[in-house]
């Protein structure tokens, strides 16, 4: 059985005279115990897809399941199996951290949950904030509480919607340490993130959304191997030849160009020399997920 299953999910929004097709027939499954990354630029439909899974939004057509439970017809079982860390930094200003977590446990029918709540507080570095009111916490601390709230009922499936957006390095490390432990203990994790190095380091498999459609779905290692595997990086003040400029990623003076193999690198350097382009600080490295991501987002994508 899949932990998460999306079957032909479409979602159409109507705002005034405009209709926007936010998702156009997305299908994929995530196996139990998997650490899965869902990537895509803003507006690609990641949050919409997660909202449909969580019951915050309804698909126009198609079916979503959590641990085999349909999110519409069997919503109670589906939501018990799911813990969602929402993207927005929301909180209830009336309560302390511990009250918030006790109340959230109650919604799931768990009366006495203090042992697990204490463990969550400890793991997320919140022990000394347990009795602080939510209003008094910094943004990073509120984010930790959101994570704890999603986990109070020990859900087998955990969804994190850009949990590290605007979060300091310490929390990112604390969080990933803890989530990786839960994943080792058998929890399935679905992560959306803008930080591609996080996805590369953590996710066993990756799906990429572009304009509401799935344009890539593969093991992270296969995705890295499947596209241009070499990355040429250098600094220059001269304009690039037009044929190279289209595939280049330029940040200030730094230029990054993908190349399939060593021959392609030789040809590229020859082309630069011919064009009179002066190259400094040349490095040749392995392509990272960012390169894969950009080449997929710019091109037609790879077969899913």
């Amino acid at each position, binding site marked *: 059985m899949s932990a998460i299953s999306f079957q032909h999910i479409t979602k159409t929004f109507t705002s005034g005279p405009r209709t926007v097709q936010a998702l156009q027939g997305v299908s994929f499954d995530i196996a139990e115990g998997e650490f899965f990354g869902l990537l895509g630029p803003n507006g690609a439909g990641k949050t919409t897809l997660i909202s449909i899974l*969580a*019951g915050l*939004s*309804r698909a126009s057509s198609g079916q979503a399941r959590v641990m085999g439970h349909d999110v519409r017809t069997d919503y*109670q079982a589906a939501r018990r199996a799911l813990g969602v860390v929402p993207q927005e930094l*929301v909180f*209830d200003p*009336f309560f302390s951290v511990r009250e918030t977590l006790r109340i959230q446990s109650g*919604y799931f*029918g768990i009366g006495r949950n203090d042992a697990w709540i204490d463990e969550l507080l400890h793991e997320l570095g919140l022990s000394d904030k347990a009795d602080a009111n939510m209003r008094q916490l910094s943004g990073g601390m509120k984010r930790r509480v959101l994570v704890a709230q999603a986990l109070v009922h020990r859900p087998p499936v955990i969804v994190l919607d850009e949990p590290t957006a605007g979060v300091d390095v310490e929390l990112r490390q604390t969080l990933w340490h803890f989530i990786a432990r839960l994943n080792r203990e058998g929890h399935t994790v679905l992560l959306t993130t803008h930080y591609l190095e996080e996805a590369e380091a953590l996710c066993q498999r990756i799906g990429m959304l572009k304009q509401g459609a799935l344009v890539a779905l593969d093991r992270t290692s296969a995705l890295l191997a499947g596209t241009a595997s070499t990355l040429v990086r250098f600094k220059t003040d001269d304009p690039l030849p037009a044929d190279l400029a289209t595939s280049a990623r330029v940040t200030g003076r730094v230029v990054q160009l993908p190349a399939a193999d060593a021959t392609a690198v030789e040809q590229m350097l020859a082309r630069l020399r011919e064009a009179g382009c002066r190259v400094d600080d040349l490095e040749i490295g392995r392509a990272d997920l960012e390169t894969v991501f950009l080449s997929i987002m710019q091109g037609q994508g790879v077969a899913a």
Partner: protein
Amino acid sequence: MMGWRDSVGGALPLFRKEVLRFWKVSFQTVAAPVLTAVLYLLIFGHVLEEHVEVFDGVAYTRFLVPGLVMMSVLQNAFANSSSSLIQSKITGNLVFVLLTPLSHRAWFLAYVGASLVRGLAVGFGVFAVTAWFAPPGLAEPAWALVFALLGGTLLGALGLIAGLWAEKFDQMAAFQNFIIMPMTFLSGVFYSVHSLPAFWQGLSHLNPFFYLIDGFRRGFFGVSDVSPWISLGVVASATLGVSALALHLLRIGYKIRH
């Protein structure tokens, strides 16, 4: 078919949270409305005491007490569910409840139940303070209790609907100022509808709040403008109708699940 536990089992924690929410700021949510009602009693009572006798042998201030108590129950029951929902929607923390397995019935019981508790708490506070100035007596207390419970439930459910419907605070204020306030003020809190011209009397009889106040007052003086059984019929029907609508809106996730 859902079992009892799946259907309403989770209502209690949400109910407790909703009660805690207003109790933590009870100075504003309970004490303030009690003070307002006492001011009404002192001012209207003082001005009108000598001039108005609504029921034979019942001084105006005594007549006013049950009306003020009921008005407080109604307004505070409405304020509780409506303000909780609109605040949670606007700040976004409603998501914590939306993500849970709570059924629409559990939502309804929790929000309306907490509204009823706040309505009754304020109503009791107003009664305790005003009765000290003008003890109204309790001729048929069962009627008073029945109408207080139904009034709190009706307005709690109405507040739930308003809270789901409104997207901004000014929409909520409009609902409160243009629907709830006129209906409570024109229901006979401050007068017996028999003292009105025929047209306004007829119009008052279309207002379900009139039956709430009239039936409630019956519990204190043993007299009322219409039979308490008619009032009970009207109020119970209104409560059932509004509750059914609120349950339906919760079930379809009206304006909260997109």
